Every structure is written in C-alpha cells, then in structure tokens.
C-alpha cells in the first residue's frame, strides 16, 4: 500500500462511495419502479413501452400468437386510410397468457389517454386461469427465520425486490424503454416460432398458397347460458370489467382469435371455443373476429400456432379490412 493510501480517509471514502452508490441505486429504482419492474417480463415491458409512447390509437393484447401474427403498423395504416387521418398502433402481446395478465395489462393500458381501439386476443391460452402476478420477485414465503427475513428485505429494499432487473439478459432491454416510439412492439421482439424452431421461411422464397379466410365451419349452436367452463365466472367478470372501463374511457373494445394450422386447428377450432368467444362478445358488446377455423395452410406458419412474417402480413391485412368494415369506433 502506498503511504497516501494508508490514510484511514481512503478506506472511509471507499466505504462511503459504496454506500452512496447503493443509496443512489435504491433511489433510482424507487423513482422508476414501474419501468424497472417491467424489464423482467415480456408483457410488462411492452406495457411500459405503450405507456411511455406518444399517444397510440390501436392496442393489441394477447399471447405469442398475437405477438407473431399482428402487424400493428400495417393495421393502423389501413385503418388510418379508412378513417382519413394517420393512426398509430402498438402490439403489446407477449409469450404466455392468462386471464390475470390480460386484465392487468388492459386495465393499465386503458388509463393512457389517446387510445381508441383495444383488441383482446381470445384463445385457450389467453383464457387460462394460470396464476400470474406482476410481483415476480416475491421470495418464497417459508416459515423459517431466513424466509421471513428475505421477505422483509424484499418488501422494503426495492433494489433487492427488483434485483433480477440487473441481470445481463435484462439490462439489454433498457433501450426499449429509452426509445419506446422507435418500435411498434414487433421489430425488437423476434418471432416466437422462429426463435424456438428456426422454421421461418424467407418471404421471398415462398409462393403464397391460397388461404380462404371467409371459410368458417362452425355455427353458433350452444346457448350462452349452457357454457360450463370451470372458470367461466372469472372470464365473465374480467371481460365485463374491461369492457366497462373501456366504455368509460371512450375506447372501442374488440376481440379476435388468431388463425392456427394443422393439428392445433383441431383443438382451437371447436364448438366449445367458438361459442364461448361468442358469448363473451355478446355480453361485452365487443365484436369478435374469429379466424381459428379458416383452414390456414401450414406454409404461413413457423409452427402450428405462430405465423411467419408472410403469414403475419397476410392475416394483418385481412384483420384490418374486417375491422375497418365492421367496427363502430370514434374516428
């Protein structure tokens, strides 16, 4: 040690600076709690991007099927043409899905001024009652002293509560929040099917096969009151809650079921699903755009439930046309 560094002041300064850094970090995390917390979850970060953006007219909330299938800029462009003035769209869909998550995202999103159209995906995944909580970091509550201590620290020290934000894989997401207007929720978020299976075919190499989206094999057969879903009460209450808030905010709500292909079509394209979605649509007054049973060719999919970029373009164009034709919304 050099003589100057033997001075106790150096040691004290070191400890003081470490303490100051931690205090500054804690202050920073507390003052940007929502943004910091959102970095740990795909859907929360998209919600934050939406809230931080310039006012956005059309918002989509759904699962990875919507993340890969919806092109919000394309849809907003077409809708804008129909309405006579430019519109902005954002895709807040993310991998995974549950009723709780959908409600949380929709509830927060409806607080942002400027929103005019809110699209909610209806699908088996989206309507599942999988437990979901935005508080991912709550430590497991164990009865021992260590468990209680961890819980206490996690509740009172925000740097600890949101510690996973500081992981390398999350730190790289900071630009999403710094430049929320630079993305419509799709470009920085790669296609799920492509990432997992590497099956996406380059658009230029694919000849689009015929896809008749008008074909709908199912008919509404079951009266709404006879639906026996175990979580139908929860579904009702959540959708009614969202539609009520949307009505108060002057936002037009609509539902959509993204297309599927292959064997997934057999499970998604069912009387039960179709009638359950129709029931929700009728109860909330939100129009339903149903594409589960369109005999979609597999060539548009990277797997059975996720569209390729060509499939996205194809379906988004159709969805925009259907929306422009049938939605009654404040232009």
């Amino acid at each position, binding site marked *: 040690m050099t003589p100057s560094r033997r001075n106790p002041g150096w040691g004290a300064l*070191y400890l003081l600076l470490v303490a100051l850094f931690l205090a500054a970090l804690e202050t920073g995390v507390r003052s940007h709690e929502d943004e910091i917390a959102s970095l740990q979850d795909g859907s929360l970060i998209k919600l934050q991007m939406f809230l931080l953006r310039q006012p956005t007219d059309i918002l989509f909330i759904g699962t990875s099927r919507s993340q890969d299938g919806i092109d919000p800029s394309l849809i907003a462009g077409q809708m804008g043409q129909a309405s006579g003035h430019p519109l902005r769209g954002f895709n807040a869909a993310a991998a995974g899905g549950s009723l709780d998550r959908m409600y949380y995202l929709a509830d927060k999103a409806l607080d942002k001024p400027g929103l005019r159209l809110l699209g909610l995906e209806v699908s088996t995944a989206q309507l599942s009652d999988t437990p979901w909580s935005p508080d991912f970091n709550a430590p497991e509550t164990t009865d021992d002293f260590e468990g209680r201590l961890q819980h206490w620290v996690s509740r009172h020290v925000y740097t600890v509560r949101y510690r996973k934000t500081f992981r390398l894989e999350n730190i790289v997401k900071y630009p999403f929040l710094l430049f929320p207007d630079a993305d419509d929720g799709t470009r920085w978020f790669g296609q799920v099917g492509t990432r997992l299976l590497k099956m996406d075919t380059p658009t230029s190499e694919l000849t689009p096969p015929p896809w008749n989206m008008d074909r709908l094999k199912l008919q509404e057969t079951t009266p709404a009151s006879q639906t026996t879903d175990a979580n139908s009460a929860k579904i009702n209450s959540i959708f009614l809650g969202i539609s009520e808030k949307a009505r108060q905010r002057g936002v037009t709500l609509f539902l959509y079921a993204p297309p599927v292909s292959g064997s997934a079509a057999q499970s998604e394209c069912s009387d039960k699903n179709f009638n359950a979605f129709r029931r929700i649509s009728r109860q909330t007054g939100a129009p339903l755009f149903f594409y589960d049973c369109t005999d979609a060719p597999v060539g548009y999919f990277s797997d059975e439930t996720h569209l390729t970029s060509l499939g996205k373009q194809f379906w988004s164009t159709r969805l925009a046309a259907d929306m422009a034709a049938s939605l009654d919304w404040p232009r």
Partner: protein
Amino acid sequence: MLFNSLTFVLLHFVVLTLYWLSPRQGLRIVFLGLGSLVFYGWLYWPGIFFLLGVIAVNYFMGLQIEKTASPKWLAIAVSLNLLNLCYFKYVEFLARNLAALLELAHIDLAIPTPDYWLPLGISFITFQKIAYLVDIYKGQIRAEKNFLRFTCFAAFYGQLIAGPIVRSHEFLPQLQTKREFNVHSLKLGFFYFIMGVMMKVTVADTLAQFVEYGFGHVGTLSTNMAWLTLYAFATQILCDFWGYSTIALGCAYMLGIHLPINFNLPYSSASLTEFWRRWHITLSSWLRDYLYIPLGGNRTGRTYRNLIATMTLGGLWHGASWNFVLWGLLNGVWLAVERGFIKRGIVPPAGWWMHFFKVVLVFHGVCLLWVLFRAPSFDSALLYYRHLLLPPYSLSSVPSTLLTLLVLFLLFQNRIGSQLIDDRFLRLSLPKQLAMTLVGLMLILAYSQARLDFIYFVF
C-alpha cells in the same frame, strides 16, 4: 447457517458491531464465541453440544499433553478425534462394505447401518484439533490455558465448517491482544466478502443447475455437452469452495483477524504438484505436515508410496465412498509420476508456449479426475468417461448462460483471483477498487436465487 444467507449477514453485523464496541478483549472473545455457537447450532441446535464436547475434550487433552509430554496422551487424544470422525462419517461406509463382503462369501448376516446426524464440518474440526495437539506435543506451541479463548479458536465461525484449516499458532496469538479498529481491514474484509459471495451465488450456484442436470442424465449427454458440463463442474467446485474460503477470510478481516489463504489460482498450475500447492492450501499443508512427513516423507526412500498413501487418505477424507478413494489414489499416482520424472531429470523445455501447454494439460487431467469426485457412483463415472472420450462423438446446442459464464470465468478469474491474496486489493487505485466491488455487488444482486449449500459442507 449458510454464509450466503441474510441470516448470516445479520449475525455477522451484530457480532462485528458488538466486537468493535467492546472495551475489553475478554468481552470481544465472548461475543465471538457466542456468535460462533449460534452459527453452528442454527440449523440443528443439539450440534452446539457436540461442538462444545469436542472443544472441551481437546482443551483438556492439550493441557495434559503439555503437562506430561507423553506420547500416550497424544495417542489417546488423536485416537479420540479419529474415532469421533470415523463414528460419524465412516461407520455407514464400513457397514455397507462389510455387508457386501459377507454377501460375496454367501454369509447371510444383516448388518445394521446407522442413520444419524452428520455433524457439519466434522472433518475440518477434527483436522484442526489434531494439528493443535500434535503441535503441543512437538513443543511448537503452548497449550491454551484460557478456555474461552480456546473455544473461540476452535469454533470461530469464519473457518468452522469448511475451512481454511487454521493452525493454532496462526490464530490464537491474534486473540491475545486487543486490536485497534482499522478501516482498511474493514474495507478489505468487505471486498473479500463481496467477492466470495459473488463466486458462490453468481458463478457456482448458476453452474450447479447445468452440472446437476448433466451428471443426472449422463446417458443423454452429447460429447460437447459432456465436456462443457465437466468444465462447469470444475468451475463450480472451485468457485463454491474458493467462495466459502474468501467469505471466511473477509469476515475475519473485518474483525481484524488474519486467516491463511486457501486458494491461489489453482487452474493456472503447470503441474499437479503445483495444483495441490494452490488448491485447498491449508488441507495440502495439513496432509504434508501431519501425514506425509510422519509417514517418512522424502527421507525413507519410499517417497512414492508415501505420496500415494497420503493422497488416498486425503481422498477418503473428502467422503466415505470408493469414488473418493480412487480419486485420491489417482492423484497420488500422478504426483508420484511427476516426482519420478523430476528425479530422473526429465524436464520439458522451457518457454511460454510449453508452460501454456502444461497448464492446459494439467487442467484437463484435473477435470478428468473431477468426474470421480462428482459422479454419484462408480458406474456413473465410467459412463461419463465413455461419453467424454469414446465414439460415437456427437454435438448438440449449448445453453448460452453456461457458455457465457464459462467464458467470463476464463477471462476474469486471474484478474479477480490475484486480488484475493493478502492485501493486494488495497494497492489498487480507488476507482478500480470501487469498480470491482460494485460489479461484484450488482452480480450478487442480479443472480441471487434459492439458497444452495456449499459443496464442502458435507466433508
């Protein structure tokens, strides 16, 4: 109590505060001793009585050995310690093997295998006490008369469960005089603590998931994943144990106590002899001083036999299983071969490239031996060797976290490790000190997860 728990941080903070606020050394020792007993008995409080019993017996034996200078008292004292170790750690192993032998001889005799509590860190505790007793017998140290001070030495939480194996002449004199508070010691201790927890939480615990999976599903491993899993275990065990030792040193530094270092960049060794001078240094020196030299060391013309015997017993010390015995034996054989080469003047040419080649070779040799250490059974180890070395060779995709951690460790282990020797960290500029500390803190924060035990706790 685990070093990487908030409970320990709280305990250490309380002890540290009371220690430095105490006006008298006697009071400080009381707080240190009490803190150590709480630490040891936290998970299983009857363990405190076991520990106090071991301490009391060795305290008394130390006084007797000094008073009588009789080899009989030394033999009794060492035997008591070894019996204690054997009873808790090896009886089940012996019973299992005896049952297997009887089965081979077609003798149908049921041998009861005991199922009881294994005292934490019993091997470390035993080795430390034996060293204390032998040093008194040799006249190298005086027996400690103050029971409180002896308790503090024998139970100090900084080294109690998984080392370093601190000798009495290194520790007891530091308890005799009251030390002045030194902010540099506190700072150094804090840095060691952060680096130790970072090694454990960020590196070892994260790699543990891949190692657990790999060694649990050997049959499904491709060739590249078998090697990467092995590298992961080599890194995990180093960071787990080095992390523990570094936390121990850090806690001690904060209390103004200096403990010996236990690791010095072992994977940079160019020979196995050098590796064992850098890996678990306090165990290696214990084995040398209290086993290898008493066996005759280099003097009797039985150097090779002594080396192999010492390392085989060292292997058995690590665990009651034939895998550990074989691991120790192979280490001993390798050391003997190295010694043989040197004796016959067979020395490879000098040069940085040759040094590099030797480091790579030794690292891979050590890794191959780690298979025996980690595999749950001998058959599983053989299967692992087949996947590593024999065709058909196959490739599979590699988890990015695993690869990232291994590469980062490879790049930074020397940079960080070289600051964990004595007070080298204090020679860095303040910005560098801050940068290393804050990066360590952030990594701990980001990657802390479920509490995992330290690997060496079971030894």
